[in-house]
């Protein structure tokens, strides 16, 4: 087994007393001394920051001088991703999926169009797999440069008070990016709150982190990141998505544009015509036992699906889950149950977004 990687902020996390866990090949802080619930509530009510330097940043550009410099890069992205990157203005981003031939998901990604390149942000757990996939499918593109930007880390600052606390001069529209001095940042997020992701040279990252700590922004770990994204109904690869689960099942049809010839298009078209076999829904529980990934979901006596992620919701103070279930049972308000430790617990079908 290869050694676990450390982000440029590893020593800062240790200094702050973080609990470190292995995640996707990295040693990452799962929580700091205040604990997941308090970190979660900081982000919901005010502001908090996450070291997400483990995420993959892949820059794609074209060397061609004759054609529009972005052309071949764009052609490649159109080939490997479900959303239509040609719709992007400069400094705009979009959610997209790298689909396999069978309609399953290689990774869910964010695609930004910058002035001279495209920048893809991919899941840490999939970075190697995605790079291999890109190598395999870039053979016909002679002028393409695919760069794994291991020299950059990402600090995600999230929460309703983020803009005020940071004093960010320009609030780019959601899913856009901008620059602040030398700093490149985007306005997306994975918490259900407003916020920014700062893309920072690894060398400079500890200084920026210290500065933000000095502004009173609490550091938050992967634990809070998970509860926040789960309350917001946002999918996580390895839970909601995998090689056999499609973006249509997870429920982002708007990020699939059938107007271009991407890998997996035929499979997704078939799925769209025939209707998906399962749908991602939210579940809210009234008892206290927590449905974890793999928990079976029932309607009456019949198994209708399986929990993909479940946790205790710090905001709602009840257990919540995301589950892939048979479409006939995906109606909001429907009473179902989940089998936790051989006992059935009642749940109500909810929209994926639960807060």
């Amino acid at each position, binding site marked *: 087994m290869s050694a676990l990687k450390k982000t440029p902020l590893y020593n800062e996390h240790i200094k702050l007393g973080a*609990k470190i866990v292995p995640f996707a090949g990295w040693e990452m802080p*799962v*929580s700091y001394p205040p*604990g*997941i*619930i308090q970190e979660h509530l900081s982000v919901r009510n005010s502001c908090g920051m996450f070291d997400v330097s483990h995420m993959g940043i892949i820059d794609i550009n074209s060397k061609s001088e004759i054609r529009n410099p972005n052309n071949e890069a764009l052609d490649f992205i159109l080939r490997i991703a479900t959303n239509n990157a040609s719709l992007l203005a400069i400094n705009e981003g979009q959610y997209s999926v790298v689909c396999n031939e069978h309609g399953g998901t290689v990774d869910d990604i964010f695609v930004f169009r910058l002035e001279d390149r495209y920048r893809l942000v991919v899941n840490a757990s999939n970075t190697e797999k995605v790079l291999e996939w890109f190598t395999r499918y870039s053979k016909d593109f002679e002028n393409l440069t695919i760069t794994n930007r291991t020299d950059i880390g990402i600090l995600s600052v999230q929460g309703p008070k983020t803009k005020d606390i940071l004093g960010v001069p320009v609030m780019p529209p959601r899913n856009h990016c901008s620059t602040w001095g030398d700093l490149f940042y985007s306005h997306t997020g994975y918490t259900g709150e407003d916020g920014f992701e700062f893309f920072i040279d690894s060398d400079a990252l500890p200084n920026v982190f210290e500065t933000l700590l000095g502004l009173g922004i609490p550091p938050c770990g992967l*634990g809070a990141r*998970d*509860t926040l994204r789960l309350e917001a109904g946002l999918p996580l690869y390895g839970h909601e998505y995998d090689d056999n689960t499609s973006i249509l099942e997870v429920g982002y049809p708007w990020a699939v544009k059938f107007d271009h010839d991407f890998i997996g298009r035929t499979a997704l078209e078939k799925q769209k015509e025939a209707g998906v076999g399962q749908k991602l829904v939210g579940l809210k529980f009234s008892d*206290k*036992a*927590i449905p*974890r990934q793999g928990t079976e979901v029932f309607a009456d006596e019949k198994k209708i699906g399986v929990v993909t992620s479940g*946790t*205790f919701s*710090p905001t709602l103070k009840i257990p919540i889950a995301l589950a892939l279930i048979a479409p006939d049972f995906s109606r909001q308000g429907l009473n179902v149950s989940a089998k936790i*430790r051989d006992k059935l617990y009642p749940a109500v079908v909810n929209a994926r977004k639960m807060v």
Partner: protein
Amino acid sequence: MENPNDRLYSKEHEWAKIDGNKVVIGISDHAQDALGDIVYVEMPKIGAELSQMKEFGVVESVKTVSTLYSPLSGKVIELNDGLSSSPQSINEDPYGKGWIITIELSNPSEKGSLLSSDAYEAFLKESK
């Protein structure tokens, strides 16, 4: 936090405070810290007969679920009802307010298989 020396510990990180034939049971500071924010405790029923090192309930934290093993055999005679509304007591005060159940000891000789606080601390260091 110090592990008090007025009780015994199991390698599964439960503690047992023995007073005559009554034993109060909880989980150690190390265990609560490893679990993180505790949000639910699944308890046995009053009157249930527990066997040493057999499962008697679970503790759920935000992040994970962990089985509770009884450090000693005996009959459950009391539950910490406060944990249903304040499970975080286990995080805040694992050796006091965060106790979980009380049992009536059925086999006192089992005590010999448990660890003193010093031995438990040595065990923690060793397993690091």
